């Protein structure tokens, strides 16, 4: 089987509520999604998606994905998409770095490999748990009262996992954490996501003031150096998200004992192939995981769900459904959808969901193997 054509689509996914990144970093109203269709000489078609969470969040942007694919395309045509490691090596040779541009290609290849094997991706990767994965809410409230209201709304919809966004004013953050913990349900999974918002001093203030609660803080500071520097000075568990990009990052975090939890975002780390290695480092070191898309449609959520299904039930905390935050559905209700706050692994071979191509508009680029 050979890759014969790579077709690239760009579509805007409007957000239901405009989003402000913490620290006042720019408001955005739409996500710039890149959808990639890969065709083969045997008639199999795979789909991938790369949707960064805006362009100010981490080093990733939609035009960069499309330019990266343009640079890599000639190295991919003719490869067997089922041989995902060869595709990965070809991409890494063609374009060092730029993992975010590679993830949609990797995703489409896993989709085809699964279809060819007649298995969902998670099963092809070694075995997918059918235990539904809890979807983490996204609690971006400001005050104690708003936080309560937003969490109650999610609870009514069946959510048991919550990502509470903090990282602003230290005193208010402490008050919100104490209030959320006072109301925590018995089996609830709660993560306090700082999104790099604190300096070392601010992080220590909040972490020490709430040490009796033993809650998890995600990405309290900007860098791994920051997280490492404050590590001996507090006694609370930490999750690393934005600072976990490469296998080397994972090895450092595991070896130096910098975190108890990994936040694996597939587009950031370069797709399923690379993410599976981060998963294995985590499991080998007793580190639990949240697995999520950086953003995007049901396709991106589904990719993350497949990886989450390959993690033992005891070690996966939650996934995410970005699809519920956007107002356009490119797959008309198909694929895994939020049911009682959980996502259920699809049984169809491959990814398990493809978009409606006519909703994506005309392709922005097509790369084909030159005919001999």
């Amino acid at each position: 089987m050979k890759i014969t054509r790579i077709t690239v689509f760009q579509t805007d996914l409007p957000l239901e509520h405009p989003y402000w990144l913490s620290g006042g970093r720019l408001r955005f109203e739409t996500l710039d999604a890149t959808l990639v269709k890969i065709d083969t000489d045997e008639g199999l078609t795979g789909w991938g998606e790369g949707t960064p969470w805006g362009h100010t969040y981490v080093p990733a942007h939609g035009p960069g994905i499309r330019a990266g694919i343009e640079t890599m395309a000639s190295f991919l045509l003719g490869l067997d998409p089922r041989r995902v490691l060869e595709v990965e090596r070809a991409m890494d040779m063609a374009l060092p770095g730029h993992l975010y541009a590679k993830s949609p290609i990797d995703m489409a290849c896993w989709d085809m490999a699964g279809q060819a094997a007649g298995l969902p991706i998670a099963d092809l990767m070694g075995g997918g748990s059918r235990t539904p994965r809890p979807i983490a809410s996204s609690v971006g409230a400001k005050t104690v009262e708003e936080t309560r209201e937003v969490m109650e709304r999610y609870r009514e919809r069946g959510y048991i996992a919550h990502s509470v966004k903090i990282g602003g004013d230290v005193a208010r953050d402490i008050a919100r954490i104490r209030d959320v913990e006072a109301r925590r349900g018995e089996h609830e999974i709660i993560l306090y996501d700082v999104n790099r918002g604190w300096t070392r001093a601010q992080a220590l203030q909040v972490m020490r003031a709430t040490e009796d609660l033993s809650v998890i803080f995600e990405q309290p500071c900007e860098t791994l150096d920051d997280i490492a520097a404050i590590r001996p000075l507090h006694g609370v568990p930490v999750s690393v998200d934005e600072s976990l990009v490469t296998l080397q990052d994972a090895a450092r975090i595991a070896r130096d004992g910098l975190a108890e939890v990994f936040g694996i975002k597939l587009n950031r780390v370069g797709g399923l192939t690379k993410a599976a290695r981060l998963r294995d480092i985590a499991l080998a070191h007793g580190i639990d995981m949240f697995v999520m898309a950086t953003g995007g449609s049901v396709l991106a959520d589904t990719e993350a769900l497949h990886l989450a299904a390959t993690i033992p039930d005891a070690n996966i905390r939650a996934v995410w459904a970005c699809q519920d935050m956007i107002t356009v559905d490119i797959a008309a209700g198909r694929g895994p959808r939020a049911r009682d706050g959980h996502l259920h692994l699809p049984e169809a071979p491959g990814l398990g969901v493809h978009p409606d191509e006519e909703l994506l508009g005309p392709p922005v680029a097509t790369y084909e193997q030159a005919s001999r």
Partner: protein
Amino acid sequence: MKITRLSLWQVPLTSHVAYHMAEGKTCATVTTTVLRIDTDTGPSGWGEVCPIPHYLPAYAGGVRPALEKLAGVILGADPVGAEAVMDAMDAYLPGHDYAKSIVDTALWDITARAAHLPLYALLGGRRANTLPLYHSITCCEPDEMARMATEALACGITQFQVKLGRDGDWQADVERLALVREALGAGPLVYGDWNCGADRLSAIRVARAVAHLDVMLEQPCATIEDCAAVKAASGLPMKLDENVHDTGSLLAGYHAGCMDAVALKLSKFGGLSAMRRARDLCYRLGAKMCIEDTWGSDITTVAALHLAAATRPGALLNTCDLSGYVAPRLDRSAPVRVNGRIAPPESAGLGATPDPEILGQPLAILD
């Protein structure tokens, strides 16, 4: 003064001698990207960036989309004082430092032209009349490399970078270093560069086999830890390049004790603004600096020359006349190698302006 227009061109640069590095990487013809920033009431400024394919996380195709994304931040901004604009760009689009470096160079050009000063005056003042160059010797047969080194020595070059690892034969690499060292006699600096291409074992075998020679090693392996191990096993001085691209990685190289010298490259660090900060840190860290870029023609070359000229001579290892390795020249009047040394232009700004005929039609105009 406000920025009103960004114009981009792409020009293929062909190497005079096909340039081979470890792992089959070559630099035969490489696309350089040239930027002109126009202003409403002031001068225009020029920038250039030329990533080598398959080398670092940087590519020619990534420059234009990044600048298109950033156009809203750049257009309308005051170009005088590059760091303010660069900070706004970093907030709007994290990463992609190579793409931003082209803007930074052009902003410094405008700033210096507006001040009617050569750029080195704004970067700390001129510290030397002329600057030492190194000559990079492509990885080929050891005899041929020794011959090329002798030829360059006769032209006044005193620092030689010997590319290693092309054939994966560690004994050939030993021969390359030994023959070049012997051909040059005592005195000139010789360093062997793998560009990350060696595994730790092979690099240590080479390093121990040449440990009795006066040579330095450069970036044998892919990580700082590996390079530190090669240095520890051989006792030879070590230069870092690919692993070092910002403050954090400079400190990591320093703490690992394997950064006797370091390559500061404009596209790797994100431009002159970041390089100036790196230079000042290197004074403190005691690492001798090679101030240059990955590849490019005259705009890139003069940008590096201005910073090199404004660097304490005792802390400057060397600089590079990149424009002398490739054709076409973007500006035929820009500085060239004289007796193994080079000097920055003395006119206001960068002191180099691309020939419109070489540039041809713009790739994109953003206004």
